[in-house]
Each structure stands twice: as structure tokens, then as C-alpha cells.
């Protein structure tokens, strides 16, 4: 496997980098200075040529999203999506905690390129440490003239404020985030109009993920070609992957987009725990369809995983070994989606609830043979029928777990042996085949 030079995480072992001086000493704010000397369109073209894909989960080209920003003489906003909540994902938290100025530099470059003067960082309520680190860094950036009326002495004005969330997965959806920022419950909004045309307070708004913005200074520094070369085709740069579950060395790793899922599990994370084998792996956060051991020779980029029938999503890799009960793993996730559905759209509110109720019945040994197909049918009525994709995020993994491990579900509902355990829960271990 090709080694990876570190960009996004280069300061993670440099505690001084959370301060302005420490960040500058590590080469920080050079890109912003350079960017202020470019024409805004040149910056957008660089990001486009660098094939920066949105790292919140959708993988939409960042520069194309920027290009949709409505023209107006009134206010326009950048909202940073720092509401990390996708199960399996660990990236935006450490990016803010260990290198907050990197994100601020990315924000400043993006805002200069887009003519935006006001930015909100919507940060997950439970992220106390990241919140404090970013708050301190923003205050210092103001004091040092990186933010405020004259960014690095130029005529560009930029104000940045933090806004905490209060515990709702749905606010990671970009229009749910905007509702929350407006002081309401986090109901996603019907699109179109997209936020780029009618977003925060009805004004043109770009919502970008923390990691997306953290990439921007490196594209300016390296140039589009070099940044592109770090990734794979149409997926520029390095990427932060988190691997959790049953591997020997769980953790987050900055790697080239071209790394395969097999390399990630067996080379980077040391493989499975002793004596265990791989049963299934979720490649991009809990909302992505599960992959079988035979499907892991796939590159960890947006397009390759899409072709493999799953998605890169937030690059949260959840590894399950041979002892794992897939039925109980799905049941755990259905509790999550049932809890996090905002309740606005009927197919999602009812669908996630029904799925969880049926799943509970199955797990508790009361399942009926028709239940498995009934779950698939419910999923079919959820996908594409709601304002946001939370319904799909619950239905697509459910469908994949059932279709790929059908025999396990059938065994549960036909009174057969229950296979596997979840974690180390002992009473289930006796049922292990």
C-alpha cells in the first residue's frame, strides 16, 4: 500500500497548533494569504479541478455546489455542518478539537471565493471539547486579524459565529440544520428551492461539512493537480476514515481515496481480532448498505463504493466479525433511526417505528415468517417518499442486511436457532451455532 502524506491530520500530534501562533508555525494561513491575492473565480476553479467532493456524506462536488449560490445584494451565508452524528463516524470532532484553525482558514477562503461575509458554525451540542477549541480559535482569529473587518489586512470582511446544537441527528441534514439555526425544531425543508437559492433566513446559503472546508487550504497550497493525485479518479485528495468494531486497531486514519476496504481493514487496522473472521462491513456510516467479505476489494471513494452497491457516506467503517448476529445489529440500528426520525413525514415516522417494532418482535422470538418480507415491503414504501433522506438511510441498510443475510432472519422467525451475539452479551452466546 502506498504511504500517505498527512495534510488534514498533520497537526493532530502537535498540541501547539490549536493556538494561532502554533498554527502559523506549522505553515497555517499561508493559503489564505495566497487566496486573497487570487480572483474569487480562480479559487472556485482550483477546488473544481481538485475534485473536492462534499465530505458530509453525499460526495457532491463542492465547487459545483458553490456555483449554485444565488446572486443577491443582500446577505449570503456559509453554514458549517459540524453536527457529526452518523454512527461509525469520527472525523469532524477531531478536526475541530485538534486543528480548529485549519477549518477557520478553509472557511475564510471559501467565503472570500463566494463573496460571503457571514458564517455560522453549527456544532453538535455534545461536542464540548471541540466547541471550546473552535470558540477559542475563532476569538484568537479575530484578535489576530484573520477574521473581522479586514481579513489579513485586505478589504474583505468576514464574521464567524458558533451555534450549538442540542441533540438531534436530523440537524446533520442541511435543511434540518438551517431550521435549527433559525431556532426551531430541526425539520428538514422541502427542496427545491435548495439552500443555495433560499437557505438561512431565506437568503442564499452554502452548507459545507467541516472536513470539506478543512481540505480547501491544502488545495490552494498544493495546487489542484497535486491534490488530485493524492486521491483516485474524480475523488481528489486524502480522506479521513474511521474504523470501528471488531478490528485489532480501531481508530481514524488519513489515507488516499484510492485505499481499498480490504487494505483499510487488514493492513491499516491490523485485521480482525485473533481467531475471528470477517462477516460483514458497513463502509460509510450506519446509513450505508452492508458489504460481504467477498465485496471488500473496493476503493474507498464515492464512485467505487456507489458502483459496489453501497456508499462512502461519512467514511465511518463498522466491522463485524463471524460471531455477530446480523439480526440484532440491524435491530440496534432500527432503534437509532426510530429515535432520530423527526416525525415530519409519515413514511419515515411510521416506517422507522414499524420496522423497529417488527424487529423487536423478531429479536424477542415472537416473529412470524411473513415479518421479514413485511419489513422489505415497508422499506419499499419509505425510499424516495420523504422530504429528506433519513427514511432512505433507514430503509437501504435494512434491505441490504435482510437480503444479504436472509437465512439468519428466517431462522429467527421460524423458531430455528438464533445465530450470533451482539458485543459480548453472554445469554446470546449459548445460541451460537
Amino acid at each position, binding site marked *: 500500500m502506498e504511504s500517505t502524506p498527512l495534510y488534514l491530520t498533520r497537526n493532530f500530534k502537535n498540541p501547539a497548533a490549536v493556538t494561532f501562533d502554533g498554527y502559523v508555525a506549522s505553515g497555517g494561513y499561508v493559503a489564505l494569504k495566497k487566496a486573497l491575492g487570487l480572483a474569487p473565480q480562480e479559487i472556485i476553479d482550483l477546488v473544481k479541478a481538485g475534485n473536492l467532493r462534499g465530505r458530509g456524506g453525499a460526495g457532491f462536488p463542492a465547487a459545483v455546489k458553490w456555483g449554485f449560490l444565488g446572486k443577491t445584494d443582500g446577505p449570503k451565508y456559509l453554514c458549517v455542518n459540524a453536527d457529526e452524528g452518523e*454512527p461509525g463516524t469520527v472525523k469532524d470532532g477531531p478536526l475541530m478539537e485538534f486543528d480548529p484553525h485549519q477549518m477557520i482558514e478553509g472557511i475564510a477562503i471559501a467565503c472570500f471565493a463566494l463573496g460571503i461575509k457571514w458564517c455560522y458554525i453549527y456544532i453538535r451540542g455534545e461536542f464540548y471539547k471541540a466547541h471550546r477549541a473552535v470558540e477559542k480559535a475563532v476569538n484568537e482569529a479575530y484578535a489576530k486579524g484573520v477574521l473581522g473587518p479586514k481579513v489579513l489586512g485586505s478589504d474583505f470582511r468576514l464574521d464567524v459565529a458558533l451555534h450549538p446544537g442540542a441533540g*438531534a441527528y436530523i440537524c446533520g441534514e442541511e435543511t434540518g440544520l438551517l431550521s435549527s439555526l433559525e431556532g426551531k*425544531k430541526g425539520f428538514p425543508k422541502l427542496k427545491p428551492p435548495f439552500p443555495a437559492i433560499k437557505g438561512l433566513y431565506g437568503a442564499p446559503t452554502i452548507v459545507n461539512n467541516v472536513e470539506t472546508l478543512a481540505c480547501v487550504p491544502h488545495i490552494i497550497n498544493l495546487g489542484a493537480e497535486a491534490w488530485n493525485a493524492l486521491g483516485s479518479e474524480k475523488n481528489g485528495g486524502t480522506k479521513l476514515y474511521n474504523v470501528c468494531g471488531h478490528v485489532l486497531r480501531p481508530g481514524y486514519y488519513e489515507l488516499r481515496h484510492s485505499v481499498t476496504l480490504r487494505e483499510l481493514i487488514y493492513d491499516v487496522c491490523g485485521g480482525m481480532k485473533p481467531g475471528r473472521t470477517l462477516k460483514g462491513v458497513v463502509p460509510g456510516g450506519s446509513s450505508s448498505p452492508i458489504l460481504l467479505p467477498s465485496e471488500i476489494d473496493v476503493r474507498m471513494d464515492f464512485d467505487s463504493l456507489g458502483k459496489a452497491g453501497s456508499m462512502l457516506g461519512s467514511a465511518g467503517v463498522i466491522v463485524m466479525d463471524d460471531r455477530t448476529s446480523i439480526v440484532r445489529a440491524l435491530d440496534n440500528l432500527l432503534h437509532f433511526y426510530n429515535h432520530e426520525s423527526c416525525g415530519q413525514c409519515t413514511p419515515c415516522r411510521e416506517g422507522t417505528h414499524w420496522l423497529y417494532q417488527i424487529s423487536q418482535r423478531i429479536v424477542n422470538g415472537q416473529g412470524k415468517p411473513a415479518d421479514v418480507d413485511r419489513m422489505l415491503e415497508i422499506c419499499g414504501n419509505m425510499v424516495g417518499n420523504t422530504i429528506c433522506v433519513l427514511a432512505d438511510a433507514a430503509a437501504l441498510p435494512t434491505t441490504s442486511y435482510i437480503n444479504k443475510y436472509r437465512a439468519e432472519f428466517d431462522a429467527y422467525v421460524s423458531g430455528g436457532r438464533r445465530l450470533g451475539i451482539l458485543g459480548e452479551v453472554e445469554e446470546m452466546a449459548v445460541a451460537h451455532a
Partner: protein
Amino acid sequence: MSLITPELKARFDAVVARYPKGQEQSAVIPLLHAMQELGHGRLTQEHQQAVADFLNVPMSKVHEVTTFYTMYSLKPRGRQHLSLCRTLPCALCGSENVASAVRAKLGVAPGEVTGDGEFSYEEVECLNYCHLGPVLQVGDTVYGDLTPEKARTLIDELAKKGGR
């Protein structure tokens, strides 16, 4: 007597100033966080009313927020609030066993407070420390790689230290 002291008013004014004129409702979430801290982890009717009055928004708009988001508590909490992650990555690493141990040790079910008022306990959805699972958040500290034994020891240490 108003809950909003001159000191608190200055703090609240600074929060409201982050948002454009006419968009004061945006401050509901941060102000409720401040109020809940003031209420030692609990938002009373008076706290909510004070935020509504301060921002000049109807009480219903504040209720809508306090009942939607999981971080707000309308019930009293313990001096130390424990949030154990229950979602899949932690569950794969044994959080169900940790949960049983914590419940037994504290003698409470999720959502309850211990008799001495020291601990409240909740089982929450993904805290995004999945690489350290199973994890327990206490205030702003996250404890990882827990086992039932480590969780029991941790609770003993926290009890000895005492909250607030």
C-alpha cells in the same frame, strides 16, 4: 423575581448579537443551554418562560425546541449526568454488558436519578467516539474502552469526587 440578572442579561445580549436583527429566535437553543446550566441540568417552566420573554417569542416556540432536542431535560438530573452510548459501534464492542453493569451499580433504569441525587443516567445514541467504544460521557469528558469492571470502578471514582 426575574431569573435574568444584569449579569445574565449581558451574556444573553452577546448571544443574541450573533444573529441578524429580527432573527432573535435563533438564540433559543444557546439560551436554553445556558438556562439549563443555571438550573443544574433541568429546565423548569420558569426557565423556559424567561427565554421566551427575553427573546419576545411565544412560549410555544420554546416548548417546541425543549421537547424536540434530547439534550434538554425537563426533569431533575443528578449532580453528575452519565450518558452511555448504545448505538451499534459501541454495542459491537460490548456496550450492552456495560449498560447492565451501570444500571445494577447505580440501581436505576435509563432516565432515572439515584436516590442520593448524585447520578442521573441515560442511554444515548451515537456520540461519535466509535473508535473508543464502549463510551460513557460525563459532563465534557468521554471515557472509552469500557468493560463492566472498568465502568463500576469509574462510578466509584466519580462518586468519591462528587459532582458540582
